[in-house]
């Protein structure tokens, strides 16, 4: 069996999540790791018999790679994708795909022009509970949604700064926005609000500590999304959907469907990241492309997240239909 040779750009926490999956796939070889923190690249390479590099150019000098995982923080996007696209390599990239819309749009058109296979790490799409929700919603479409990311502040200091992470809507709640788009369809308008509280234990934190957004979908459904990083624990992360005679609650580990007969909860089964990685590898290997979130698809979600931030900044609603 030939092995698909994968290189990693960025070997931080989210990369480890994918490595845990990819190392178990018999048709994958982890060939090389690039990270500006060379010791981190060495650590990963020495677990898999791979090569380590201090930058992506070194990694991409390996002409035997079949595909690349780009697992870098939000502010670092751009050069890595361009270099991968220039070499005509399929890539998987973690969300959010950029901080600036123009960069993501440019990259999306370059990807399209090159006809590359791409995938973006919106792994909620791969929950079996989401499959179930999609089936139910086909008969009883959602008319209203409430999305939540009510959580603690992530420890990495880059996350605390808007010019590094884009803020909570762009960095975290984007998962729930993407889930809403996956289940309900495109968004046509958004209105965002944001507030900020100084916190002595998070010096220099300048991202909104609370933010909300009202959305309207092309289906006519309406939604509200709430984010906060003020808690010291994870409180609620998920999406609630309401239709005619149905209320549904999704988290990343279970689904509750209330049709007036109690509140039955079913736990999610299997690993959505495993399915996400498997689909990407299969597509790279020339098998059926079942990837649920391509770069172009992720761009649509990213546009919504950035529009919320923009709306909160200007105080004006943003209408997305023309841009779609």
């Amino acid at each position, binding site marked *: 069996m030939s092995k698909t040779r994968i290189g990693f750009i960025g070997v931080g926490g989210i990369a480890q999540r994918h490595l845990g999956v990819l190392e178990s796939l018999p048709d994958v070889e982890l060939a090389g790791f690039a990270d500006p923190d*060379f010791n981190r690249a060495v650590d990963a*390479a*020495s*677990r898999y018999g791979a090569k380590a590099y201090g930058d992506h150019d070194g990694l991409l000098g390996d002409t035997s790679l079949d595909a690349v995982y780009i697992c870098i923080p939000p502010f670092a996007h751009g050069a890595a994708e361009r270099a991968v696209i220039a070499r005509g390599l399929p890539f998987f990239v973690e969300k959010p795909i950029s901080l600036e819309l123009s960069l993501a749009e440019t990259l999306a058109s370059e990807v399209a022009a090159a006809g590359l296979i791409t995938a973006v790490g919106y792994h909620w799409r791969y929950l079996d509970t989401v499959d179930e929700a999609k089936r139910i919603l086909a008969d009883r479409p959602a008319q209203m949604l409430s999305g939540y990311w009510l959580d603690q502040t992530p420890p990495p200091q880059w996350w605390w700064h808007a010019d590094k992470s884009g803020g909570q809507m762009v960095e975290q709640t984007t998962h729930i926005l993407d889930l809403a788009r996956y289940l309900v369809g495109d968004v046509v308008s958004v209105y965002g609000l944001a507030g900020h509280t100084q916190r002595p234990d998070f010096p220099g934190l300048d991202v909104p500590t609370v933010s909300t957004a009202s959305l309207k979908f092309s289906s006519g459904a309406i939604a509200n999304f709430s984010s906060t990083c003020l808690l010291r624990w994870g409180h609620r992360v998920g999406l609630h959907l309401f239709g005619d005679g149905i209320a549904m609650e999704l988290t990343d580990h279970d689904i509750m469907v209330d049709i007036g007969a109690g509140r039955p909860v079913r736990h999610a089964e299997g690993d959505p990241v495993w399915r996400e990685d498997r689909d990407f590898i299969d597509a790279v290997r020339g098998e059926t492309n079942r990837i649920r979130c391509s770069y172009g698809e992720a761009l649509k979600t990213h546009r919504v997240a950035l529009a919320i931030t923009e709306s909160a900044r200007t105080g004006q609603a943003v209408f997305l239909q023309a841009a779609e």
Partner: protein
Amino acid sequence: MLATDSLEPSGLGEHMIVLGQSLVHQYDIVIACQNDENGIAFLARAAKAGLRIIAFSLDDLPGFGRWLKAAGAAFLHVHAGIGWEGHELVRLGKAAGLPVLRTEHLPYLLTSPVQQAEYAAMLLSVDRVIGVSQGVAESYAARPNTARMKMIANGIATPSCGNRQAVRSELGLRDDAPLLLTVARFTQQKDHASLVAAVPQVLLQHPDARFVFVGDGPEQDRIEQMVREQGLEQSVTFLGRRFDVPDLLAAADIFVLPSLFEGLPLVLLEAMAVGLPIVATAIDGTVEAIGKDHPFLVTPGDPMLLASIIGIALGDREAAKAAGDAGKTRFIHQFQADRMAMQTAALYAGFLAGPSHTLQARNS
């Protein structure tokens, strides 16, 4: 697969990297070492040299064995710093059904009957043993199965040209003050003690001489204490581990290696490659490197003689330069990495030619 379980893969590690780099166009080379601090630091150097790396845990060698099989390794080449190292790796390679080569980096020094018996048992399964010098190979001649012993002399890539001023400025040394460099781990084998004992006599004739010790190791505290007790702190400088060897060699006027025994010391080859005059002990591996006609050889463990030969080398700059030039010529003809790699590749080819092994050679 080039593997070692050496706890401190310094010279041996550099040998593996040089070999790997020289063979990487013919073979898919992976450097393996245990996952402790020294091992990972070595693997980082190997990775910087562009080689594939894998770390293993001594507590989970079967896991490494499974990796060897899954990765489709064609053979395992174990590097032993001393005779008691590497036995588990040899067994692992054989259990994985691979041809196993083993390079001995030091002469046969085992005195414990248990270690001797373990070595003999290991020899039964290993396919080929390589000695890094004639002296090393001959020291194993009395062992059984020595027909499998092959001598492939150590070789190194020509070091890049260093900056003479960088280290001298760091040390605050005048241009004409003689710098005597010793790059060696602080172990009893290297016998820094004899050199420290020689320092006062050298200073009588050359009071501005500066002895510079590069490296670390278990004996360092004892040697530093010796230096303090003799009040030599102004004349002996400890630089610790350094990775700017070309600059260190460029800054030096004499290279001193007082070892009691050696395989074939890479640091001498590096000093030879840049034409640096050498004062060293007349022991097998060292003599093999610099030649028996070298003018500045001394009996090991004799500080008085060491001091007087250093004095001669410092006093007769022309003779020292001639010895340095001769060393450079000798290096070019005998100790380049390409020659070592070619001989090693020829050995590998013998194992890979068999129909039973997956060929990992690249079609380059």
